């Protein structure tokens, strides 16, 4: 059965079971592998995408629930790897293994779109759903502040 999902501004007709979790629709059916799998129970944030402006865990919601909405993945946030969040991430060398970072970046992008100059507290809240096993949290926090600075200059 085909369902249509709007991913990164493009309507994609995907021949999948509508109950397929959105994460696997994005990775397997749409072929966008930047979004990662970590737990499958909305605990780690590796699978974070932005749906209608909100950072959402895609691993435990059926693909059908996202039909008609705007889904954004890591692949869409800039052409040249130069979104302010990406610039800040590179400047402060945030990633280690890198596996969690698509999710971290998507959560950070969603946060900054809502709150261009977030406090530490807001950052802690917005990033609470994202685990980094490599422990890059101090750098992520600093990089979000830096991204806010880059955006406003």
């Amino acid at each position, binding site marked *: 059965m085909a369902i249509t999902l709007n991913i990164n501004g493009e309507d994609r007709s995907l021949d*999948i*079971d509508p109950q*397929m*979790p959105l994460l*696997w629709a994005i990775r*397997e059916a749409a*072929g*966008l*592998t*930047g*979004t*990662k*799998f*970590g*737990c*499958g*129970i909305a*605990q*780690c944030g*590796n699978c974070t995408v932005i749906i209608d402006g909100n950072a959402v865990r895609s691993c435990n919601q059926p693909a059908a629930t996202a039909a008609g909405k705007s889904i954004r*993945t*890591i*692949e869409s*946030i*800039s052409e040249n*790897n130069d979104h302010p969040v*990406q610039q800040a*991430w*590179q400047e402060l*060398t*945030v*990633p*280690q*293994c*890198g*596996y*969690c*970072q*698509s999710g971290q*970046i998507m959560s950070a992008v969603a946060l900054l779109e809502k709150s261009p100059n977030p406090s*530490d507290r807001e*950052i*802690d*809240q917005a*990033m*609470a759903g*994202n*685990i*980094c*096993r*490599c*422990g*890059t*949290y*101090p*750098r*992520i*926090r600093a990089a979000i502040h830096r991204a806010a600075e880059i955006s406003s200059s």
Partner: protein
Amino acid sequence: MNKLQISRRNFLRVSASAAGGLMVSIHFPSMAGAQEMGGGAEINAWLTIDPDNIVSIVTPQTEMGQGAFTAVPLMVAEELNIPWENVRHVFADANRHVNNDNLYTTTSTGGSTTVSRRHPYIMQAGASARERLRVAAANRWSVPLESVVAEQGMLTSGDMQGTYGDFAADAAEVTLETEPAIKAYGDWWLLGKEDIKRLDIPLKTNGTATYPIDVVVEGMVYAACQACPVPEGRLVSYDFDAVKDMPGVIAAVELVQTKDVPSFTDLRSGVAIVAESWYQAKNALAVMPITWDLGRGASMSNESMAAEAMQLISQPGTVLLDEEGNIGRGLDQGVNHDAVYGIIEASTNVVQGDVYHRPFETHATMMPPCAVADVKEDRCDIWTFTQDIARSLNEAADQLGRDTTNVFLHQTYLGGGFGGGYNMDVHRQAAAISAEIGRPVKVIRSREEDIAQDSQRPPVWGTFTAALGEDGLPEALVTHFVGEEKMPAFAQRGVANMPYLIPNRRHENSSIQNHIPIGFHRAPGANSTGFIVEQMVDEMAQAGGWDPLEWRLKLTEGNEPWQRVLLAMKEKSGWTTDMGDGEGMGCAVVESHGTIAGCVATVAVSRRGQLFIDKLQYFINSGYVISPLTAVEQAESSAIWEMSHAMFGGLVIRDGRVVNTNFDSYTMMRMADTPPVIEVSLEMSEDQWWGGLGEPTGPPTPPAVANAIFYATGTRVRSTPIAQATL
């Protein structure tokens, strides 16, 4: 400290690369340095210089966030003398390595050794290439070799000049009579610079870094696997008919275990479901009726293991002795381990420790174990989670009964490793399933299956009894640490060989029965024993009326690397044992991987008993540092890694199985839990050596925090997770 020596009586294999550039592979005679290198027979490195002066450098180690893909190119570029912008990283060819006498010596990646143990032959590759470029230029220009300068990718002599790329093809033909010596520490222009960023950063900010889970092969299907939930148990039967009509389901494949007790990477008894999509495979597997023979571990639990440990610890254990009859460093001065009990009995000032404990922990790499296999009649291609590409290639060949020449294992980035990539059978699972169904397959382990089947970090229990002399310092000390039977040495690391000079010591050990698989886990052994040793030390210091930092300084007198760290802690951390009510500082120092890492923790405990770790300060002495930025990143990373276990971790074993198998129950540190201040100070000894940097800040962190909690509250936290302690 390890000081590597290596003979330069090497010879070189040189050939022009396909693009007409220079490719260098260096062979050292197998007898030279082989033992110090960990037993490898030959030593090689590879680099290619293209005509456009771009240098591609191969790294046989894996990149799991620790910076190997940058460290190896850095070391080559230092000797080659090429601008860092011209350096590219390329993956190693595992097939070529395996089928050419281990061309790169080893592809194993662990123990913080990529730089510390392997730098001599890696730097030699760069030096050798540079010298041959100089000879090529001297020949073409007909000038004396001494007049040719190789610097920043340019060769010059008088007013003649050219790029390395211009001379690369010529250099490939040059044979050197003697190999150049590699540079000494003081002569570096690139290594040790503050601002060198890792090469893999940009790929990891836009989702383009490829991990095994991202690999797609034409016609690929997906598999979910299950081994017996009680480790060491075996599959008896399964009812595929019950699930075969579920959406997408293609097949069930039995995973056949050939050994009674599988080692780390042997295929474990179990079953897989293959489906069109991974979630379909996982859903069908979850409801398929399976019967297991649960094996010997079926009634084990945390409680049963603790009961056995407490039983063992209450009676004398085995004494560990080295060949000279000593039990470790610091014990060769007047040590009398047999007399220790007598001294304690006669003493009027005995400190009797309680039992400390660290539980099982799991790797939970951010990418769950995953492998893709495409087994065809004439070749097999594999992408997998591994910290040793050659070993996994050999094992895949073994699994398939194939010759290694037809097995190709492709390196990818890894979503963390931490030792977990040494203990996997996921590549064997993928190979076995693909061979069985005749299609390429991607095996993804669910997080639940990952944590249930991981080779875990073992638990440890430890206690001590000390007799203090008139000066308040220990005169005699008995320690008794209990580990488990599979890797008992982990429970003794850093205890028998603690650096503190105590005149009479005895160290006893015992092991409990254990069916849970055990593996290497970032800073193995020290990660658990450090928690016990460094609190035990504080207990002795307090009982003897000593400041704990002064106590450590006193009992490591003459040990320069430790003194350097301890003095830095004293002078730079704002050290005091006298903070306000509910606040405290604590210290701990642990050596692992040849690096001494000290931690000073500052904590506050609220009236309600809530713990805040305000600050963690690290003082690290690893001898050399080639990349300070990576060193600091790794220090932060291993500190948070270990503090995460100490605060929130701890596997729960019940009915022989791990029950907290996902992040809702095996919890870990998140952004808000991370201490607001983490500072790292590199304190390098003048007498230099190469210590590892991927792991050492983990072990001192939990004891420093626990010691700080003691100063803040008077409560001693003797087990983890600390979040469960009543403060």
